[in-house]
C-alpha cells in the first residue's frame, strides 16, 4: 500500500515535471531560438571555412579534417529543428518560405544531412581527393538552400 502510494506520488511528480518542462520549452523566446540558430549556423560556417582552408592546402591541419567533418555531420543532422514554428519573426534572415514550403525545406535540409554524412565518411578515409569532392557537394547543398530560403543581408 505504502509502496503504491509512493509510486503514485513519484509518477505524479514526474508528470508535473514533464508539464513544466514542456511549458518552459513552448515558451522559449523566439528571439532566443533565432540567436541560438544563428550561433549554430556560425559554428557550421566556421567548420566549413576551416575545412576549406585545409582542403585547398592553405594550411597544414590535415589531422584535424576528420574532426571538422564530424562537427559538420552533427550540426547538419537536424537543421529543420533550428527553425521551429514561430521563430520567423524578429532579427532573422530566414525567408517565409522556410515555413510556407516546409516539405521542400526539409527535403533540402535532408540533402545537406546526407552530404555531411558522406563528407564525414570521406574525411575519415584519409582520401583527400574524395574528401574534396564530397566537400564540394556539401557546399553546393548549403548554397542551394540559402538560395531559396535565406534573405541576402538585412
Amino acid at each position, binding site marked *: 500500500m505504502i509502496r503504491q502510494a509512493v509510486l503514485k506520488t513519484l509518477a505524479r511528480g514526474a508528470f508535473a515535471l514533464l508539464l513544466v518542462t514542456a511549458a518552459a520549452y513552448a515558451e522559449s523566446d523566439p*528571439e532566443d531560438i533565432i540567436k541560438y540558430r544563428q550561433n549554430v549556423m556560425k559554428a*557550421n*560556417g*566556421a*567548420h*566549413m*571555412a*576551416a*575545412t*576549406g582552408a585545409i582542403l*585547398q592546402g*592553405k594550411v597544414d591541419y590535415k589531422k584535424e579534417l576528420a574532426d571538422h567533418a564530424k562537427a559538420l555531420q552533427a550540426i547538419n543532422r537536424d537543421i529543420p529543428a533550428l527553425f521551429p514554428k514561430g521563430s520567423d519573426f524578429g*532579427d532573422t*534572415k530566414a525567408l517565409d518560405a522556410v515555413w510556407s514550403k516546409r516539405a521542400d525545406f526539409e527535403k533540402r535540409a535532408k540533402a545537406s544531412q546526407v552530404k555531411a554524412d558522406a563528407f564525414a565518411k570521406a574525411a575519415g578515409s584519409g582520401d583527400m581527393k574524395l574528401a574534396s569532392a564530397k566537400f*564540394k557537394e556539401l*557546399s*553546393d547543398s*548549403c*548554397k*542551394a538552400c*540559402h*538560395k531559396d*530560403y*535565406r*534573405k*541576402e*543581408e*538585412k
Partner: protein
Amino acid sequence: MRIPRLIPAVCAVLATGFVAAAGAAEVAHDRGDYLFRAAGCGGCHTDEKNHGPALAGGPAIKTPRGTFYGPNITPEPALGLGRWREADFIRAMREGVSPEGAHYYPSFPYASYTRLTDDDLRALWAYLRRQPPVAQPNRPHDVPWYLRPRSLLGTWKALYFTPGAWQPRPDKDETWNRGAYLVEAVTHCGECHTPRDALGGPRRALHLAGTRDGPDDSVVPNITPDRKTGIGRWRKSEIVEYLATGMTPEGDFAGERMAEIIDRSTSRLTPDDREAIATYLLSLPPVEHATRKEKQKPVGGRDEFGF
C-alpha cells in the same frame, strides 16, 4: 579490343580537362555559349523557379522604379526574336534600342552590354539563334504611370548612358583588362552593386559600393576593396573561391540572387576568368559605403544582463 577500351579513356581525359577549364560539370561549347552563361542571361529571361521554358520570359524583378519581366529571347518569329537580324541584336545591346527604334528600360542592362566587343556580340547572337523557339507572349513591365512614356528614356540615356565597346587600358596587364571587361561588360556586376540615384542612374562616385535598394528589396553589398564596408579584407584567393563555390571566408554561403548568379555564371567561368575578376575588383579605389544596418544593441538590453 584495344581500341574500344582506349576511346573511353581518351574521352575521360578530355572531359576532365574541359571540366577543369570550365570549373563546372557543364561545359561551354563555344564562345557564345560561354558568354551567355557568364552574362547570366537566363537569370532575367528564364523563369526557372516556375519551371518556365528556357529564355521564353523571366521572373518578376522588383525594383524601386517598377517591376520588370525579361522578355522572350528565343528565335520564335512572332513572340521572340525570330525576325531580328544580327544588326538588330547588336543595336539593342549596344544602344538599348529596339528594331522599331523604341528605347529599352535600363533594367535591361545595356548600359553594361554596350561595352561588349562586336565579336562577342556576334557570338552571343549566334548562340541565341541556335536555341529552341518557344511561343510564349511577353509580360508587360509594371511601371508607375510617370515612367511609362518611353521617350523619357531618351533623356535618361543622355544623362547616364555612354554607348561604345570596352577599350582596354594599355597601362594595365592582360589579367586586369580581362577582369575589367568581365565585370563592367559581361557579368555586369554594377547593375546591382552600384547604387542608383532618384532617376535610376548609377551614382558614379559609388561605383560597385553596394546599395540598400537592390532588386527585390535586397541589400547588395559593397564590393570595392574598402576594409571596413567592402571586401578589402578578402584575399584574392578568397574572392576566387567565393565566385567558384559561393563560400565566403567565414564559411558562410551566398544566398538568394547571388547564389543563383554563382550557379549560373561565375562557377562556370574558367579559373583564369575568376582570377581576373578578383584582380580587377581588388584594384578598384576603395569606397567607404556601409550597406548593412548596424545592429542596435541598447545598453542594458537582454544580452548584457541575461534576462
